[in-house]
């Protein structure tokens, strides 16, 4: 048995002798590994993007809306019949289990004006917990507090988009804008959250809920709210909270056993799970497509190694005649295959990282290059080398030295 270094040297030498062939053989592995890395980077990037979006929407949320109003059998759309009230929110907060915060709100599209600028945006009547529940952070000024709500103060917070459209570079704090015809003083601005799908999460204005009810939206039912958002204390608690909320609301709304709910509860956890699994499926799909190309690369190595064994039959015969054992021959060819695949793997990893970064920049998508897929695909390319190199190596070691020597 000979030492590894010498075998490696022999293998490297014979790869060097056939440079072009070695390069082409490795190309299969290079493409395979690069594909795996790019695909996983894109998949992981999408995953991270979705997670970030989820975070920005707030997590473990239950959104309660009035059920669809039906007028003569025609659905009028979600939340058109005001059945939820601020009292419902208070009851939920008092009695439902597993909840952390309750945020009732009203919202409506309104025209807002500052000076001669005007902008159409969504105005939300909120209470203090809403900012926390939906992960909004203050940039300047102060948030809406209890006093604002109790006094139905005409104060507001504005989102980044509104700030930009109405004020440009001017500091909006303490400026007065008109929502509909009502003047509001700006007490704070919100940090930007960016797009969530087609929705601009910064194109909004927050005012105290009581102000909204009494002075802006003008509802027929005092105390009505269009939504109640409940934050559960953990993802596990969302289901308990959901059940409790349903019971509380059904009781409060005097619904008989046979009557349908006049409200609807949406569980963000379900939605998150769905999104997550969709993204994961997508990532697995990409990775498996890429793995196929890695496998094809491995078969390429086997193919070339088999050709190489046949072509070098005479060399094998000479080596056996001067004292190489079957094991030595096997190791030589196995190491050749392994060097080809690992070298291919290494170049593939670098190429893959390069392409992933390029895609991230060129298409402005989120790509995440993590260590695991790099090690995984590099390790896999090594396995491919051993797996597909073994048969040709074994075949070479079985040659009869006399026949091999006579081979021309």
């Amino acid at each position, binding site marked *: *048995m*000979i*030492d590894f*270094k*010498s075998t490696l040297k*022999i293998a490297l*030498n014979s790869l060097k*002798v056939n440079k072009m062939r070695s390069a082409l053989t490795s190309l299969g592995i290079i493409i395979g590994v690069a594909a795996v890395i790019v695909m996983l980077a894109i998949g992981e990037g999408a995953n991270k993007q979705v997670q970030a979006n989820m975070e920005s929407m707030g997590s473990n949320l239950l959104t309660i809306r009035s059920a669809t109003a039906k007028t003569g059998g025609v659905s009028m759309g979600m939340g058109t019949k005001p059945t939820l009230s601020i009292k419902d929110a208070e009851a939920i907060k008092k009695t439902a289990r597993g909840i952390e915060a309750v945020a009732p709100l009203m919202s409506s599209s309104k025209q807002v004006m500052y000076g001669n600028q005007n902008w159409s945006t969504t105005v939300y009547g909120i209470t203090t917990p809403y900012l926390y529940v939906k992960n909004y952070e203050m940039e300047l000024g102060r948030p809406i507090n209890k006093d604002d709500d109790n006094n139905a103060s005409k104060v507001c917070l504005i989102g980044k988009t509104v700030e930009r459209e109405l004020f440009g570079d001017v500091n909006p704090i303490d400026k007065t804008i008109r929502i509909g015809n009502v003047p509001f003083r700006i007490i704070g601005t919100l940090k930007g959250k960016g797009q969530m799908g087609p929705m601009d999460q910064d194109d909004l204005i927050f005012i105290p809920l009581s102000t909204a009810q009494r002075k802006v939206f003008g509802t027929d039912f005092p105390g009505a709210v269009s939504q109640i958002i409940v934050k559960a204390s953990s993802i596990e608690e969302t289901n308990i909270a959901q059940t409790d909320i349903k019971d509380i609301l059904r009781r409060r709304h005097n619904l008989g056993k046979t009557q349908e709910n006049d409200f609807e509860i949406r569980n963000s956890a379900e939605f998150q799970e769905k999104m997550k699994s969709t993204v994961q499926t997508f990532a697995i799909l990409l990775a498996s497509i890429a793995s196929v190309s890695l496998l094809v690369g491995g078969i390429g190595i086997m193919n070339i190694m088999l050709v190489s064994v046949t072509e070098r039959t*005479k*060399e094998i*015969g*000479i*080596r*056996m*005649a*001067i*004292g*190489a*054992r*079957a*094991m*030595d021959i096997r190791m030589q060819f196995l190491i050749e295959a392994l060097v080809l695949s690992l070298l291919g793997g290494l170049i593939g990893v670098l190429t893959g990282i390069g392409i992933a970064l390029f895609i991230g920049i060129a298409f402005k998508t989120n790509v995440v290059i993590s260590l695991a897929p790099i090690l995984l695909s590099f390790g896999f390319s090594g396995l491919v080398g051993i797996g597909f190199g073994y048969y040709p190596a074994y075949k070479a070691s079985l040659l009869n*030295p*006399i026949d091999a*020597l006579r081979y021309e």
Partner: protein
Amino acid sequence: MALIEVKNAIKTYQMGDELFYAMNNISFEIEQGDFVAIMGASGSGKSTCMNMLGTLDKPNSGEYYLDGVNVLSLTQDELSDIRNNKIGFVFQGFNLISRTSAIDNVMMPMIYKGIPEEERFERARQALKIVGLEKKENNLPSQMSGGQQQRVAIARAIVNDAPLILADEPTGNLDTKTSIDVMEFFVNLNEKFGKTIVLVTHEPDIAEYTKRTLRFKDGKIIEDIRKK
């Protein structure tokens, strides 16, 4: 004790319906330090005998002792070690590994013996010096003449200090003048280094360089002549 001892070796091949005797009950001994030519027409069994001596092939029956070792009882790996340590091969077609430098070719048997790299270089250079090719160590076989290639092969055969050198028509592909050069190397190896050499040839003037001639015919030794 003789270096080579062959007793009642029989090797047959099935040729259609007939049984062909490549070696028909052959027995002979070769002493340490001898220089033997094996002669005979093609099909006389001399190549079969050489393959057996080189442990590349086994007879159907009989015994073969090399340096006291019962070769026919050994495993493939043990035979590899025997070829590596006890036997140096020189072939008609040189059989150097192509696209591999002279010195790498010469170092090859030492790699399989597990000799450290530094010593390999040193001994390979020495061997190349013996055959007068110390300046050609980085040449590829394709950049050398037939005579030079055969000398590299001889260097490879002696580099592991094998006591036995088996040469299968070593001058068959060389012109007369180069043949003489090569034969003089063999004589030198035999006389100065005490190597036992067995050489197959069908040229009488090549056989002239040796001390003893075994003539084969139809799988039998028909003549065993000692010269000088």
